[in-house]
């Protein structure tokens, strides 16, 4: 019995980290109604700054675009080569710094980061729907992480402990003193925060603004200033957590970013309002994980499946089931628009042209482009799974790639080990993924918005840990090979021979196979959008209560969405496994899910066209290759730029790249034509009809239809400007 108490005590180290991060999450949510997924990343970034200042006396400058490069470029066109100054990567100030100076520099940096997050991003997004806020904080997380990778590569950095870590004997076990000191510091911080927010005018103003911003404004409270101060404090707190805890947790670009998940669980239980609840639940998760670890070892009847890593998910799910919609609203009216889910028509002629082009490319194109196309097509299917669940129904899911990974694993087991033939094996694998997707969907039925994002994130991690890492029935020791798919004796794997083409890899056979699957998914999703279920999905997205009042089975629609989306993710997963000929966990890690989400939003999360755009930008897609060929190899900057573009998109244009749609494209094309004509000295022509023509969305009925009614619905449908 004593040993279990010991282990509850031993959980103090990780518990403090989770609790302290949860404190910051509560702060930022109170400040601006945002669930800050980037909170752990702030801690990580600031700790790197501290480490760099302390060990090297060098201040890392975040990667900034150099305007001089443009000047250099222009000058080089006319043959002048100049080397103009660039931003320094590090500002060297002396050699080593004393710890307190480094900490000061780091904490100031943290404050600046917090302020910028507020001023540049979340202040602007105040009235936008939760999707925009989730996307922005994911984007900021990617930016911070990429900035660290660019500046520090992956040289593991060790942060020395600032606190004494002599062992203290408690309850028969030894606990280093630093954990207790950290615990004490955290309790002190929580007390201070509690007192400030309960007693001081600033604290009361913050709570007032958190409850109802408009009423607060009437009392002369500047919600903006309040939010700014809160953000600065929260960021500084995150920085301190990172610096003090790094000797325990280690410092690398990934781990602190992932600690956010248990912290989110704790903050969720606290309804993002109560400091003390967040702290105790955070400590509880730490203690619980520690307890589960010893229980797994000591008690034989508990399977060795890494239960402790699933604890955050359990906490989150229970909290949601019990409390339902947990995130408090702020009394402000949401005025922002969700990305338009433009209805589309399947235009057979256009599609045929595209298919012919793609077929040509996949058979006779240069091999790099073939592989890029294959990557794009598969990524587009994965993005489509997000279009269905997030674009159409408004359910934010960050677990898509984990589900895809399940399918990939199953494929390996079924096809290679059990010898199940194609096409049963991949379909079955996708169905298994669907099954897990529906399991994830059940607790998701009661929640929406950022709460759902949190839950799916935790679910994705749980899937990753339970099923992939442990002795669970999906992991194994043997190599996870996936045999080439073949049907009726014809092989169409990535290395299979093909009658035409240059004989290089990837095989056109595989490319055509993927193209076929994508076309099927494309048509299916468009049909879905056009169907009654699609309309119901959009209704649920717009307003669940109104949809229910109109007779829509909201739960059923959500389940259907998760089911269809998981199936698509599963298909994407099996294709990925075929692509590599093996299963590779890296493809399906939680960071990949976040990355896919980011790119899907960038491409346009509510349309199939957006999914295709997302596919071009995703890992080694056509967009990446084209960029590399035309400009330069982005390398480590790709993630950085992706994060920046993602935030910009959320701020300015939630439609994503798909904004360049239909009439926009035609107008741009017409604009270039006019420019060309003028440059070649030809007179202007009148604007042809095809530039401004509004294509009807649905096929005309057989009888003649008057022109006028076409205008209004078509305007809405085309969604050209839409305001």
């Amino acid at each position, binding site marked *: 019995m004593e040993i279990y108490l010991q282990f509850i005590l031993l959980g103090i180290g990780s518990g403090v980290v989770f609790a302290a991060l949860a404190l910051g999450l509560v702060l930022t949510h109170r400040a601006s109604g945002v669930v800050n997924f980037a909170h752990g990343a702030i801690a990580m970034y600031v700790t790197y700054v501290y480490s760099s200042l302390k060990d090297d006396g060098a201040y890392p400058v975040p990667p900034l675009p150099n305007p001089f490069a443009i000047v250099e470029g222009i000058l080089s066109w006319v043959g002048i080569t100049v080397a103009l100054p660039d931003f320094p990567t590090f500002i060297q100030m002396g050699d080593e710094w004393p710890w307190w100076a480094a900490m000061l520099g780091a904490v100031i940096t943290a404050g600046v980061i917090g302020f910028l997050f507020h001023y540049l991003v979340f202040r602007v997004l105040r009235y936008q729907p939760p999707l925009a806020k989730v996307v922005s904080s994911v984007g900021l997380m990617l930016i911070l992480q990429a900035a660290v990778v660019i500046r520090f590569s992956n040289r593991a950095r060790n942060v020395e402990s600032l606190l004494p870590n002599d062992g203290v004997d408690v309850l028969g076990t030894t606990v280093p003193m630093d954990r207790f000191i950290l615990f004490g510091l955290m309790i002190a911080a929580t007390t201070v925060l509690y007192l400030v927010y309960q007693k001081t*005018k600033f604290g*009361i*103003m913050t*709570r*007032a603004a958190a*409850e*109802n911003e*408009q*009423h*607060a*404004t*009437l*009392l*002369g*409270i*500047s*919600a*903006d200033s309040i939010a700014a101060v809160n953000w600065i404090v929260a960021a500084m707190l995150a920085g301190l957590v990172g610096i003090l805890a790094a000797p325990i947790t280690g410092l690398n670009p990934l781990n602190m970013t992932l600690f956010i998940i248990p912290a989110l669980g704790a903050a969720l239980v606290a309804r993002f309002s109560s400091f003390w609840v967040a702290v105790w639940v955070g400590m509880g998760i730490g203690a619980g994980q520690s307890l589960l670890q010893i229980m797994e070892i000591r008690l034989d009847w508990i399977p060795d499946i890494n239960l402790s890593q699933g604890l955050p998910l359990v906490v989150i799910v229970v909290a949601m089931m019990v409390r339902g919609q947990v995130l408090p609203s702020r009394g402000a009216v949401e005025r922002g628009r969700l990305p338009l889910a433009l209805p589309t028509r399947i235009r057979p002629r256009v599609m045929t042209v595209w298919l012919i082009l793609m077929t040509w490319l996949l058979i006779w194109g240069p091999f790099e482009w073939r592989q890029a196309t294959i990557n794009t097509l598969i990524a587009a299917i994965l993005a489509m799974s997000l279009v269905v669940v997030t674009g159409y129904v408004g359910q934010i899911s960050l677990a898509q790639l984990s589900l895809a990974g399940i399918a990939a694993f199953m494929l390996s087991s079924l096809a290679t080990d059990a010898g199940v033939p194609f096409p049963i094996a991949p379909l079955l694998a996708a169905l298994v993924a669907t099954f897990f997707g529906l399991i994830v969907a059940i607790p998701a039925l009661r929640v929406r918005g950022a709460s759902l994002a949190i839950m799916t994130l935790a679910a994705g991690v749980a899937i990753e840990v339970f099923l992939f890492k442990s002795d669970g029935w999906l992991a194994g020791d043997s190599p996870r090979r996936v045999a080439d798919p073949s049907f009726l004796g014809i092989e169409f794997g990535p290395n299979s021979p093909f009658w035409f083409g240059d004989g290089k890899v990837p095989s056109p056979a595989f490319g055509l196979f993927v193209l076929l699957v994508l076309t099927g998914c494309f048509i299916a999703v468009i049909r879905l959008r056009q169907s009654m279920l699609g309309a119901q999905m959009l209704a649920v997205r717009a307003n669940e209560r109104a949809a229910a009042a109109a007779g829509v089975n909201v739960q059923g629609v959500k389940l259907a969405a998760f089911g269809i989306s998981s199936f698509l993710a599963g298909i994407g997963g099996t294709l990925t496994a075929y692509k590599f000929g093996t299963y590779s966990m890296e493809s399906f890690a939680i960071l990949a899910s976040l990355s896919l989400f980011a790119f899907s939003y960038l491409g346009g999360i509510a349309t199939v066209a957006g999914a295709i755009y997302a596919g071009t930008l995703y890992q080694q897609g056509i967009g990446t290759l084209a960029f590399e060929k035309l400009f330069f190899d982005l390398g480590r900057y790709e993630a950085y730029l992706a994060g920046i573009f993602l935030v910009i998109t959320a701020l300015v244009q939630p439609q994503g790249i798909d904004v360049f749609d239909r009439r926009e494209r035609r107008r741009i094309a017409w604009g270039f034509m006019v420019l060309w004509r003028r440059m070649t000295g030809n007179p202007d022509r009148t604007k042809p009809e095809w530039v401004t023509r509004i294509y009807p969305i649905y096929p005309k009925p057989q009888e003649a239809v008057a022109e006028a009614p076409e205008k209004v619905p078509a305007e809405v449908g085309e969604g050209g400007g839409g305001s």
Partner: protein
Amino acid sequence: MSERVLTLTAMSSGYDNTAVVRDINLHVDRGEVVALLGPNGAGKTTTLGTISGIVKLMEGSVEVMGHAVPKLRKAHQVAQWGVAHVPEKRGLFFQLTVDENLKLAPGLTGPTDKAYDLFPALKPLKGQLAGTMSGGEQQMLALGRGLLSDPSLLMVDEMSLGLAPVIYEKLMPMVRQVADETNAGVLLVEQHTDLALAQSDRAYVLSHGDLVLEGSAADLLRDRHLIDAAYMGVEELDSDEEIDCPHCGKTVSTSATHCAFCDLALPENGA
């Protein structure tokens, strides 16, 4: 002698680029109580919102304490100039206690005792959450907070809403008291005309977003039918039954003997 605390000049404002109130001319001086009357949907709340800077001003101007009303982002400045706006839903924070709500009075540096002196019924409720109080208690709290900040302009929106007449009749005279004792200007928005006019010096009547009637409270009390007609809306009068008063130019009904606005005799057979 009195200083003008509020001036609206040809003000139009609304939501989503659609004007809800049009061409309003209104002013409030120090020490006077002005009533803003009108039926539901007339635009009274929108008008107050525009003065407070939370509704976007589209045309015309709003001047408060000599300052032009700021952009939406800086709306919080209005309260800092000495405007106390008690909104329609009382603007209380239900998660905060009575005392905490009081502490939020803008510009408050001292203790909150003055509010308790004004409303002794609040004293035992000091630590109670505002969301758990009765309507009357909430209204007292909202008023108390508004007065704590020693405003130059006090705006109260539909104080009587949801209150029993007994309570309401007790609270109403307080606004007169405030104007007399502190020399603040008071803008009182109400649907219940009689009691409001009893405390006011002047009144304006809004209908469907337009200012249709203005005058001293005494005049309007005497000629209640004018207000009723205004509530009905001027445009409801058939054009046959309308003539222009030759003295002041306003449109009046032919059935009246005297002009509703300038109170001069109308010609018998219409001019």
